[in-house]
């Protein structure tokens, strides 16, 4: 049925451009991970229940991102959910296509293997699609993401910090290096990394207050920076723990080693939660 000319919806060309941006972003942000061997192994090792949990967590993350930093800031809850489902679907399709194209799976591969690989890769592509759709958009009026006058709330700050942390920390979480570092570093060194992470969060936040906009000026001071730093580092640690759990990095390891891995990955997560957050909003 032809669209009535009176309706002001996007044209097919508009939609195609937006999907194009999403696909470009999907690859841009996830190719380093798609081309990482640990990711392929993760697809083979992660049990179905955890893959489903990852799918759900990614969907929630996409909803959060679309609600607070997405392309259409005036989106209703229903639109946010629809956009997130689309992004997850595009992510999975791209993941299947790339995995077949690169020969990681073929027609003879077992269902369990294809499913594992496609879901693990697809989740990261989907996050890339979401960020790409919003960030690679043209500078035109309503496409510029969050409007300047929008008030930052605790929940929007938390969601963006969390999204930023996941986006950046996920790039290194599946690698062996995190485990190697965590198991070889002394407690003192770990405390050093922890302090450095907090200092990094505070510094980036402090400067963001000055390079950002004047809307922080009234209600932010030293207390604001401490408050923001705590939120940032907490989001980074929680995001790190979640990603590490997804990749089975706590399996058969002592609690202390699990905490050590969170601290090491938390450094990367902090960078994402503070710098990434500035980038995302």
């Amino acid at each position, binding site marked *: 049925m032809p669209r009535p000319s009176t309706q002001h*919806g996007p044209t097919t060309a508009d939609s195609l451009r937006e999907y194009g941006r999403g696909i470009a972003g999907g690859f841009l942000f996830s190719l380093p991970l798609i081309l990482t061997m640990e990711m392929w192994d993760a697809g*083979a090792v992660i049990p179905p229940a955890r893959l*489903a949990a990852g799918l759900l967590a990614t969907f929630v993350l996409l909803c959060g991102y679309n609600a607070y930093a997405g392309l259409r800031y005036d989106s*209703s809850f229903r*639109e946010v959910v*629809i956009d997130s489902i689309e992004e997850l*679907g595009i992510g*999975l399709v791209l993941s299947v296509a790339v995995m077949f194209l690169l020969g990681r799976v073929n027609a003879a*591969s077992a269902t*369990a293997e294809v499913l594992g690989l496609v879901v693990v890769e697809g989740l990261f592509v989907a996050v890339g699609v979401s960020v790409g759709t919003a960030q690679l958009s043209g500078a035109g009026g309503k496409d510029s993401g969050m409007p300047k006058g929008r008030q930052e709330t605790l929940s929007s700050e938390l969601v963006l910090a969390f999204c930023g942390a996941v986006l950046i920390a996920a790039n290194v979480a599946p690698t062996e290096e995190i485990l190697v570092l965590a198991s070889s570093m002394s407690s003192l060194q770990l405390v050093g990394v922890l302090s450095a992470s907090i200092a990094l969060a505070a510094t980036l936040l402090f400067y963001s207050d000055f390079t950002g906009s004047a809307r922080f000026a009234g209600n932010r001071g030293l207390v604001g920076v401490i408050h923001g730093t705590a939120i940032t580092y907490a989001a980074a640690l929680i995001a790190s723990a979640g990603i590490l759990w997804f990749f089975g990095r706590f399996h058969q390891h002592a609690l202390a080693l699990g905490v050590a891995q969170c601290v090491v990955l938390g450094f990367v997560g902090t960078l994402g939660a503070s710098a990434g957050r500035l980038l995302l909003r």
Partner: protein
Amino acid sequence: MNKNRLEWTVFAVSLALIAGVVSLLVYQHFASGDAPPSIFVTAGPAITTGGGFAVPFDIRNEGDVTAEDVRVEATLNWPGGSERGETVVPLVPYRSHRRAWIAFTRGPAGATLHPRVLGFREP
């Protein structure tokens, strides 16, 4: 809500795909337990290579846990002699299979081939 037909199609396909993936994952979760790796080895037809013969082996993991560093040994016995060979497969995912080759100097004609799994580890 202003959405055109293309956007609704993408949404419908995405929704169907996600529903399919989730159902498959849920099915796999309930259809499988936590049985340790269970490796079966089947020999395929030998081919002639530069230095002799090579036999392909289908290495199947019917367990619910992935096996890593799967070592497979095969002994070729014929009247009056035998030859042993082995191979290592880095990863055999749960309920999946891999193919590996073992080379022998002698052809399998008139001989019997006995493959067996030497060992593997859990990830």
